[in-house]
């Protein structure tokens, strides 16, 4: 009797936990599916060629998001141009040059601290430092500089992970053939860690696409149509910032949902690209 009671108890305990686990995983998945379907269903009908190819016009009262799309592209380009050398350089220093263990720990701790700081604080410091102190005003350049600081830990970490997998023998081989350290890094180490650099790039682009709080006070929210160089020095909204402004300040929910649908598709695409490149490099490494 006692034995049987205990056994039913155990059975109920196990069944309950089992149920909770499946329910939780189910809730998570359903949430994602709901978000995707809801946003696409509400947004896709408003994604028209006109919306994508024009700028907002006061005359016709129509809204176009071409400037916001271009701003996003400019911002991504400008950020990556500065971010990649810095991030890869930091990673190379940590794995190839640094001999002092304390120093490595300090730099890694700093990088972790950076990745924990919320974007609104980046926005504030970016505004003080780049817009005011360096007198860049509200501009995409100021926004890009802020995003460089934000994304530095990401590129640094992915490159570092990849550098760690380069066999020590490659380096010794290069030295043995008489290569200098820089020559060795340039010809042996960097080509081997391309996967880490590319992964870092993809992750950073994803974050830049989704960023809004850090850009509101640094890049501003103008919708002017500019070329690359004028665009960089003037204020401009990216897609996410434009979504926020249209939804919160102007009540233009149709445009907001259209942008949300575009962002959702881009998020999909970024995830897919990250997956595929990961698989590609894994395959290449194993053969």
């Amino acid at each position, binding site marked *: 009797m006692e034995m049987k009671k205990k056994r039913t108890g155990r059975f109920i305990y196990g069944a309950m936990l089992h149920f909770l686990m499946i329910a939780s*995983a189910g809730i998570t998945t359903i949430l994602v599916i709901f978000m995707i379907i809801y946003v696409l269903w509400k947004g896709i009908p408003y994604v028209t060629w006109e919306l994508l190819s024009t700028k907002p016009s006061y005359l016709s009262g129509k809204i176009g998001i071409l400037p916001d799309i271009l701003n996003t592209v400019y911002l991504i380009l400008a950020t990556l141009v500065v971010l990649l050398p810095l991030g890869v350089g930091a990673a190379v220093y940590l794995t190839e040059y640094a001999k002092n263990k304390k120093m490595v720990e300090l730099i890694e701790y700093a990088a972790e601290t950076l990745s924990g700081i919320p974007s609104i604080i980046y926005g504030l410091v970016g505004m003080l430092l780049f817009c005011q102190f360096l007198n860049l005003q509200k501009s995409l350049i100021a926004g890009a500089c802020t995003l460089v600081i934000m994304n530095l830990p990401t590129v640094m970490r992915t490159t570092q992970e990849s550098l760690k997998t380069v066999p020590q023998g490659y380096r010794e081989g290069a030295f043995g053939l008489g290569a200098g350290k820089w020559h060795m890094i340039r010809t042996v180490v960097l080509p081997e860690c391309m996967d880490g650099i590319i992964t870092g790039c993809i992750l950073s682009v994803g974050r830049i696409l989704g960023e809004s*709080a850090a850009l509101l006070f640094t890049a501003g929210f103008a919708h002017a149509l500019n070329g690359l160089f004028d665009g960089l020095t003037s204020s401009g909204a990216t897609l996410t910032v434009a979504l*926020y402004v249209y939804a919160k300040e102007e009540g233009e929910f149709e445009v907001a949902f259209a942008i949300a649908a575009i962002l959702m598709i881009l998020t999909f695409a970024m995830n897919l690209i990250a997956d595929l490149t990961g698989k590609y490099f894994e395959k290449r490494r194993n053969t």
Partner: protein
Amino acid sequence: MKRRKTLETVIHGVFLAAGLITIAFVLMITIYLIIAGIPAIREIGLSSFLFGAKWESTANDPKFGILPFILTSIYGTAGAILIGTPIGFFSAVYLAKIAPKSVKRVVETAVSLLAGIPSVVYGLVGMLVLVPSIRKLFHVPDGASLLAAMIVLAVMVLPSIIKVSLTALAAVPKEYEEGSMALGATPVETYFKVSVPAAKSGIAAAVVLGVGRAIGEAMAVMMVSGNVPNMPSLFESVRFLTTAVASEMSYSSGLQRQALFSVALVLFVFIMLINATLNFLLKRQKEK
């Protein structure tokens, strides 16, 4: 030969600079926030700033008490963690130990999509789905409330909690589980009484990471919380530390602007404490 040596030294210097720049950025952010944040606190007084219950920044006789923001941020984060942790925790155990490979792949893809969705999209959906439902369900005049913010934040912290717990659970040595099952425990008992305790530092780190995410989120919360500086209450429109900075920054000036920097400094102190805890937990997990 000599030229090559100089070149090497220069290159070494360049890489050293790139390495040190992370530290420089952290110092710069800290110093900037302190310099910008201290003046208003000195003028208002530390205790009336931190514990003042009223924020009326644009009144003739302005009051700068940020207790409502601090409490709202703490309550909002706590609420999000209370909702998000159980779901995230059970999902992680399921994915790490029980889920068949195909299910695992689908759910993991879903989770990384969830992590990639921009916060303004969460805000938008929250604004148009969650806020009206709360209004109808609880018969309150406005659904933009602390509750709405808690739910949105709970969804947003889910991916962090799931991913970090999953890694910790997957790292538990197989021998522990095999030993437990050999002694007659069922698989589910083994997972919850052996694997979970073995991964507890990592799971704690996951929750702390979620706390950091939730307390730092600005835009999504701004869109669903109503943004009135009330003392926190579940169905009342509230303002967080992050949204306090975001909502007034664009038109502020003088002492009001400086006070906003002080709010950011307070937020930064919170974040630093959370980061320190996170690092401590991750280190402990690694040592195991």
